Structure formats: structure tokens, C-alpha cells
């Protein structure tokens, strides 16, 4: 008879269904007992490895989801702002620039007549005083003798 547990006997013990003979042998044989314990530790390592692998995967998914959503949201907000702002600036550039022109106000007829009357009522013109033109320059003829 073999001194140690056979493969089948060992498997019965490891699967949690040891017979009376196997239990007695395990109690007397430190080698088989140690081997069974080592086998159990190996299965435990395997179980922990699978659990860690999946836990890591789930944890990384949670992290990615937590970190990814705000970035995505901010990107959408930034894109919306750009879409709204760019047309405004483009419209501003396309609009023709208005040059500030000096406003020329036409004097009323009453004011013109008042100024003429004041001018004619003087006895004589002041020295070096330019002659006042009652007729606009574009209507003057070169051969005219002048108003005054």
C-alpha cells in the first residue's frame, strides 16, 4: 500500500469530502497534510487574483466615469460658447466702418438775412476784412463784377 494519499483521495479531501481513512491519514502524515494546505493556498491565491483583477477593472471604470463626465461636459460648454461668439466677431469684421464726418448745418434763411443786414449796416469794412460772399462759390461766375 502507498504511504501517501492517491490523486483521487487527495482530490476528495481538497473538494471538501474526505473519507474517514483520508482524515486519519492526514492526521498522521505531515507531508500530505502540508501538501493539502499548500494546494488550498494556491487556490486561495487564484481566487484573490481573479477578484483583484475584476475589482481593479470595476474601480478603473468608476474612476473613468467620474473623471470623464465633467471633462465631456466642459468640452460641450466650451464648444457652445465658441459657436455663439465666433459669428458675432465675424459680423463685426464684415460691417463697413463708419467714418465720423463733421456735421454741416445749414443756416436758416432768417439767420442769413440777419447777417447780411448786419454787414450792410456798417459804414465801412474793417481793414483786411475778407469780402463776404452772398452767392455760394460754385455759383460764382469768373467774370462777375462781384456783389459789392
Amino acid at each position, binding site marked *: 500500500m502507498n504511504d501517501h494519499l492517491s*490523486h*483521487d483521495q*487527495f*482530490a*476528495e479531501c*481538497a*473538494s*471538501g*469530502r474526505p473519507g474517514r481513512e483520508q482524515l486519519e491519514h492526514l492526521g498522521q502524515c505531515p507531508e500530505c497534510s502540508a*501538501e493539502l494546505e*499548500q*494546494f488550498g493556498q*494556491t*487556490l486561495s*491565491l*487564484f*481566487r484573490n*487574483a*481573479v*477578484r*483583484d*483583477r*475584476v*475589482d*481593479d*477593472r*470595476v*474601480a478603473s471604470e*468608476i474612476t473613468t466615469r467620474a473623471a470623464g463626465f465633467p471633462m465631456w461636459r466642459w468640452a460641450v460648454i466650451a464648444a457652445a460658447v465658441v459657436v455663439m461668439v465666433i459669428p458675432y466677431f465675424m459680423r463685426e469684421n464684415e460691417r463697413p466702418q463708419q467714418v465720423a464726418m463733421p456735421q454741416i448745418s445749414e443756416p436758416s434763411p432768417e439767420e442769413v438775412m440777419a447777417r447780411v443786414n448786419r454787414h450792410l449796416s456798417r459804414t465801412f469794412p474793417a481793414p483786411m476784412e475778407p469780402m463776404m460772399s452772398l452767392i455760394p462759390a460754385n455759383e460764382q461766375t469768373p467774370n462777375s463784377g462781384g456783389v459789392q
Partner: protein
Amino acid sequence: MKPSTATGVMVVKMGNPALEFEDFDKLVEQYRTRILRFLFASVHDMDLAETLTQDCFWNAYRSRKSFRGDCSVNTWLMRIAINLVRNHTASRRFQFWRKAEKVDSAEIHDWPTREISPEQRTSVNEQIEAVWKATKALSERQRTVFLLRFVEDLDISEIVHATGMSESAVNVHLFRAVRHIRKCLGKKA
């Protein structure tokens, strides 16, 4: 702290099992890791396991009204997951994944073993990889029973409920699985 699903199995409220499904999102959150773990160890591919996990909860949602409450929600979800693995084992879809699996060997070489020395890490990785490869060679039923017993810590009666097999069949498959893995490990164990 990482999420842990090792404890806190939802106990069935006998008489009104529909109460379990009032908040289905919470149920998914509670059991997703466990189902994903079993499926990953069964099909040896994380992406496929993710897909099957989604299928599992979708099937559970669709058939939630047929849940009679004669077992725990965990066992019921496991039963759905086991059926998905069986279907995919036989389907062409799984054939595609099995081919892709040969390329994606990172799944077995990237075990996160923490807080150990490099020498211990090498030894541990060898042992884990040996068991990983040994489970691949098991039949689908043997692997399912082995994973439910030694990874999910289900007792024999729960495995009977989850698999639909008789108790003696479960014991036989478990015995053969352990014997095969021990042979594959050889002196490494």
C-alpha cells in the same frame, strides 16, 4: 477603498420576491462585480465577460417577474450567467472570441499581486497562471462547479440551485476538476 462584493448577499424576502427588483440599478450595482468575476474566470476574456455581464442583467430584467424567490438573487443571477456561458460556448460568437483569446494573453500575465517581494511575486504568478491554464482545460461543467465553489465560495446546495444539476453530479464534477487541477499543478502546488 475598492468595492467589495464578498459579503452582503441580498436575502430573498419570501412571499414577495418582486420587492427585490424595485430598484434594479441598485441590484446591478450590488451584484455586477460578482457576476463579472465569474464570467471572466469562465470565458478567460475580460471584454467578453463585460458583454456577457450586460446580457445577464438584461435577461434578469426581462424575466424579473418570473423570479419566484425559491433561491437567493445571487444564485438566480448565477444561473442566468451559467446559461449565457453555455450558450456562448456552443455559439459561433464564442468561437470568434476563442480565436481572439490566443492573441490576448495579457489577461493571464497581468495579475495584480500586491505587497509581496519580487521573488514571491514570481512564484505566486506561476501558481496562479498554472491554475488559470488548468481551468481552461476543464470541461464547461467542471469549470463552472469549480469556480462557483472555490472563487465564489458557494456551498454545494447553492451550486445545485445555480447549475440545475443534482448534488451527486455537482460533487462528481467538483472532484474531477480538483483532480485535474492538482495534476496540472504537479509539484508547483
